[in-house]
């Protein structure tokens, strides 16, 4: 099943996230990712929802019924740029330090804090690239990892 990405423009009002989440859970929709943040328009936020549902039409329609949801666009995967942020804390020691940092930076991650026995990396990229980084560093012992949820934008006007 291929993924579908919904870009949902909402009013920036208290409880909007709860309403969207409640609708998704009440209707039994499974989603892979949901990210929310401000936009360039005053009073408007954007949610990016990624789902593999065949019934994405139903998701759109049910969310559209929410009074605070203004517009929902399904992004065309061929003309979409996707990005996600990741913070990852991994164990290191004298023997592994160099190779961990090298591997991570070759993958596109930036080391933001390196201690004696740990290193923190930050990376933005497609969720697949983030997955790769995670797999690459797993053998060294990931202490903690946080991902920000996927956001996406259409490339053409």
């Amino acid at each position: 099943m291929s993924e579908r990405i919904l870009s949902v423009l909402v009013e920036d009002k208290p409880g909007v996230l709860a309403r969207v989440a409640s609708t998704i859970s009440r209707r039994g929709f499974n989603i892979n990712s949901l990210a929310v943040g401000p936009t360039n328009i005053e009073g408007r936020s954007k949610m990016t929802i990624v789902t593999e549902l065949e019934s994405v039409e139903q998701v759109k329609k049910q969310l559209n019924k929410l009074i605070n949801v203004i517009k929902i666009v399904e992004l065309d995967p061929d003309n979409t740029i996707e990005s996600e942020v990741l913070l990852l804390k991994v164990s290191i020691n004298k023997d592994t330090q160099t190779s961990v940092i090298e591997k991570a930076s070759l993958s596109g991650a930036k080391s933001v804090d390196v201690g004696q026995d740990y290193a923190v990396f930050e990376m933005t990229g497609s969720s697949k690239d983030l997955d790769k980084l995670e797999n690459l560093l797993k053998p060294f012992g990931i202490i903690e990892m946080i991902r920000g949820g996927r956001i996406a934008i259409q490339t053409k006007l």
Partner: protein
Amino acid sequence: MSKEKLSGAELVVRSLEYMNISTIFGLPGGAILPAYDPLYDSPIRHILARHEQGSGHMAEGYAQATGELGVVIATSGPGATNLITPLTNALMDSTPLLAITGQVASEAIGNDAFQEAYTVGLTMAATKHNYLITTAEEIPQVLLEAKHIATTGRPGPVLVDIPKDILNQKVEWIEPKLTEMPGYKPTLEPNPKMISQAAELIKQSKKPILYVGGGIIHSKANQELFELATKFKIPVVTTLMGRGAFPDGNELCFEMPGMHGNYTATTSIQKSDLLIAIGVRFDDRVTANPKFFAQNAKVIHADIDPAEIGKIREPEVPIVGDAKSVITGLIEKLADTDLNTSDWLDELNQMKKEYPLSYDQEEKGPLKVPFVLEELQKLADDDAIVVSGVGQHQMWISQHWNFTSPNTWLNSGGLGTMGYSLPAAIGAKAAYPDRQILALDGDGCFQMTCQELITASTENIPIKIVVFNNGNHGMVRQWQKIFYKNRFSASELTHHTPDYVALAESMGATGLRMIEKSDVKKVFEKMLEIDDKPVLVECIVDPEDMVFPMVPAGGSNDVVILNEDDLKKL
């Protein structure tokens, strides 16, 4: 000169007056008390329910009888949680409702203050929309918006939660104005292309059927529907929520399809080559297993709520729009098409003759609900409003009562809420004091909200209540007979407790009782005569009677169980 300042509470009452609300239903308590003070001087009639669930159903009954907004007001915490059932009921049946609830003071919110409940969170999935007020200035604007949302598009309940400190805040009245809501623009006018496509399908159809429901009633489109059906000779079936949208007794009316629908209505859909579905949602009580539903038919589905279209069945022609505009569009497009449905109508009429609804009332035997209903209808006014509970009696009423106009049949269709009938009847009577309002209830249902009989007496709302006393949760018993080998686990009430007549009298109503066939006419005549207070008739009926036809949940509408013998088919 500075303008006069009003408290938030005064703004609430003034806003209701501004919106021409004449009657509200409620029950006071700490957090909402400030609003009850200005209400004391207001021309708005406040009807004091005995339980908030009752007040909510009263507001629903008022709204369903009139097609206008029903208003209910309650306190925070338990007052608000008691409203959740009527709110959900109104959401399921698309009833326009405004609920105003008090909330603990703004600064106490989140601290588990006395009688605090997270009302906005709790009712998020029980309302079309809800609000938490944060300043008194916004009260008139939010209430107007709430009314707009509740009454337009697909109607539904809207709740406005107001903290107590805000009810006491003094601010100026700012005249509310409906401004554009960027996220709320219901589509009323259908796309003409879709109307053309629908008309094309209709022209090609040999066995069309109009499958219509509550949407016709909300849209006040019954006259247009009548024209469409009669001009082109298209048979009509009306869902539980759509009873009365097209007149029973008309030669094109085949009444209710579905789980307890009549054989012809259910089967007409199975044999049809085109469903013209308007203001319906392919509910499972109509479709049974949707895989087997109308397998030979193409589908035109028109609804004001786009989310209903394609939810259960993907239509060939989807139409988003208000039923009235959709039907008007179809009539224009079909112009003077001659559909020639006479073979199809013959087939349906033949079926109707072969498989009529029936019941067997023995001269000396126990009373049967269908018989009692038919006797009552002979005596009742034509414009009487019938308000039902949930269970066997509800299905019998829908089957056997002749509904000839919209808004004369009130019931809890989507949620199936026991306890709805009596309070909803009070709401309807508050709206139409001069009409007969008949609460036709089951004994189980009646016991859920019977304290509202006190409301009816003390508020001088002379409704008529018939309690069909079969001593059982009859519908549950029926399922236990069919699916659980007669193991009647927790479905027995008793015929004798309470003493309904004494109970009615103790609550300020007149109590009557009928037991035998020979009682029916004279007791009903007496009931209809009394007009200065509520009357309750206890009607003792056969506990063993079962509702047929029946299509078991999840079954196929091709297999209709017609009677007890037929149960062997299962």
